[in-house]
């Protein structure tokens, strides 16, 4: 902090706490000004970009930005557009350039869509697009909701795990976990190129099969809008459930979701049966083994957790073992 800009609170602030008395700062999101002093209007972490001070809440609703990759659920089908619930302040819209008479042929209520934010309206509503062939309807799996703060905007929101499971991380905190499929255009964070290529061929075959049986003329589109699941064998199903439970654990521990954290949690979980994972002691153990590998991350977790009262007892998560490094 440079000396002329004056003192500014760092770290976590609560509602109404003073951030700075210095008049040179500008108020950003999550702050308000009284008598020239900037106060926090929400609880969260203080962030400063040059002269702009803002507070980011950790448990907030999702507010969209252009280019975000989101996973949402169709909540209503309109005449010319679909309304998508993206867990934001407003429902997002997905504009359609397609046949207006067959809106439900493409997306129905309840469908899970994978899309990109095209623009943000003044009132906070979003406009989405699914222009790439990789976007569109998600199937062959389950959806799970986490805190939106845990998914950061990054290079890749598609994670292909070794075990043949794809994780689609929506920036809005909606996560789809499903059987591996091939994304042709988007960058995929795959750690297993060989398996990836092998899978590509088999998936291409299944794509054409699905295309033939569909009523829609275009093979590519029929796959995007298909509701029919592929055959999912029991081992893939087990892996999907394992990844699902790992993501639930990471969410409860407030650990950021990315390919590293998901992979580590997955590997740690392998010594347990899938249904055991959501039992409290096992989840704690997985969390603890993570600590050794990445103490910086867990320290941050601890700070966050204490601030939010997640750890209010000392015996929970053995908090006394952490030291500030």
């Amino acid at each position, binding site marked *: 902090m440079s000396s002329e800009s004056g003192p500014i609170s760092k770290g976590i602030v609560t509602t109404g706490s003073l951030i700075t008395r210095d008049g040179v700062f500008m108020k950003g999101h999550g702050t308000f000004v009284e008598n020239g002093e900037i106060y926090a209007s929400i609880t969260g972490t203080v962030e400063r970009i040059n002269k702009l001070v803002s507070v980011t809440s950790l448990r907030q609703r999702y507010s969209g930005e252009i280019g975000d990759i989101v996973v949402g659920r169709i909540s209503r089908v309109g005449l010319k557009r679909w309304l998508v619930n993206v867990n934001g302040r407003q429902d997002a819209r997905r504009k359609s350039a397609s046949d207006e008479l067959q809106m439900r042929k493409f997306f129905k209520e309840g469908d899970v869509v994978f899309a990109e934010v095209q623009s943000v309206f003044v009132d906070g509503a979003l406009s989405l697009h699914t222009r790439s062939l990789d976007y569109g309807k998600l199937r062959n799996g*389950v959806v799970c909701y986490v805190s939106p703060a845990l998914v950061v905007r990054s290079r890749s929101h598609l994670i292909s795990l070794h075990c043949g499971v794809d994780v689609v991380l929506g920036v809005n905190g909606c996560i789809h976990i499903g059987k591996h499929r091939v994304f042709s255009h988007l960058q995929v964070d795959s750690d297993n190129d060989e398996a990836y290529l092998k899978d590509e061929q088999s998936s291409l075959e299944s794509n054409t099969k699905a295309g033939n049986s569909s009523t829609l003329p275009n093979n590519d589109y029929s796959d995007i809008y298909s509701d029919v699941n592929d055959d999912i064998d029991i081992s893939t199903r087990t892996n999907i459930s394992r990844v699902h439970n790992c993501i639930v654990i990471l969410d409860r521990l407030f650990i950021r979701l990315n390919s590293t954290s998901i992979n580590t949690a997955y590997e740690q979980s392998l010594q347990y049966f899938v249904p055991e994972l959501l039992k409290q002691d096992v989840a704690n153990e997985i969390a603890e083994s993570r600590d050794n590998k990445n103490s910086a991350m867990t320290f941050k977790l601890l700070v966050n957790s204490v601030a939010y009262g997640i750890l209010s007892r000392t015996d*929970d998560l053995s908090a006394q073992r952490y030291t500030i490094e």
Partner: protein
Amino acid sequence: MSLYPISISETNYIAKGVEADFRVDGRDNLSFRDFSIVTGVVSQTYGSARCRLGSLGKGTDVLVGIKAEIGNWTPGEPDNLFGKRGKIVCNVQISPISSQFFSGRSSDDLEIELTQILANSISLEQSSIDLEQLCIIEKQAYWILYVDALVLGYDGNIIDTLFYATRAAFSDIQLPKVVVESVLDEETNTEHQAFEIIDDPSALRPFNDWENIPMSVTSYIIGKRYVVDCSVQEETISTARITVTINKNGDICSIHKGDMKTGISPSLLQNILSISKRIGVDLVSAQSAKIENAKLSKDDSEIPDTSLTFLNLF
């Protein structure tokens, strides 16, 4: 309940999982999630408990508080013709914070349904609760227990969570002692009985035989099979619901059917009843152990077991 929107492919995925006896979170069709119980969470009540089911700190969460009041018997009261019994009045409310689907009046129907199920199972004869212990003076005064349940989190299977919390709250009841004495009315020279509540915090009595309160096992029918302890998604795609209440002896106390999209074949029903009985007996003993545990940890812990610390268990 069909509040939760769900896609065709998800429905298919979940249904296939149920068929393969491997559900989304890895459980088989007949296993329950972990649940935790704390008692004595609301100090203004005569007995309270909170139960949370599954999902590591989130999940379905029900808070039950029991308040007692003294009621005056009037002749011709239904269910209490001879004035020998007390009363239990149930009320279930769903807080909008429990789920984004419960805003405004959308939870009203469910509230009424849950209240009915709880009231039928607890305050009627079939509950095998000794209501005569709530009578203070025959044909004159009795205790009314108001059982108020508040649903604070919703992740499927509200009904069973409601029963766990209610049973635990009954175990926590401490009613004030009442002294009944005969008073001689000098004007008419007749004797009548009067009671006095002892205003001493140590003179309390528990609710006897709360162990007899039944627990419920709710099965949801998905396809040709059924699952217990559903998640929200599974509830959404299920076609029928059967709630069986079972007491500690393994006797079936009541059966409720809900969410009628389909009927149930007699053989399936018979199967559900026998499985529910088996699960129910285990649940009753598991729950009793948890209640004991909750009471023990409350005694020797320096940190008060407030609702907040429980909320953040894990």
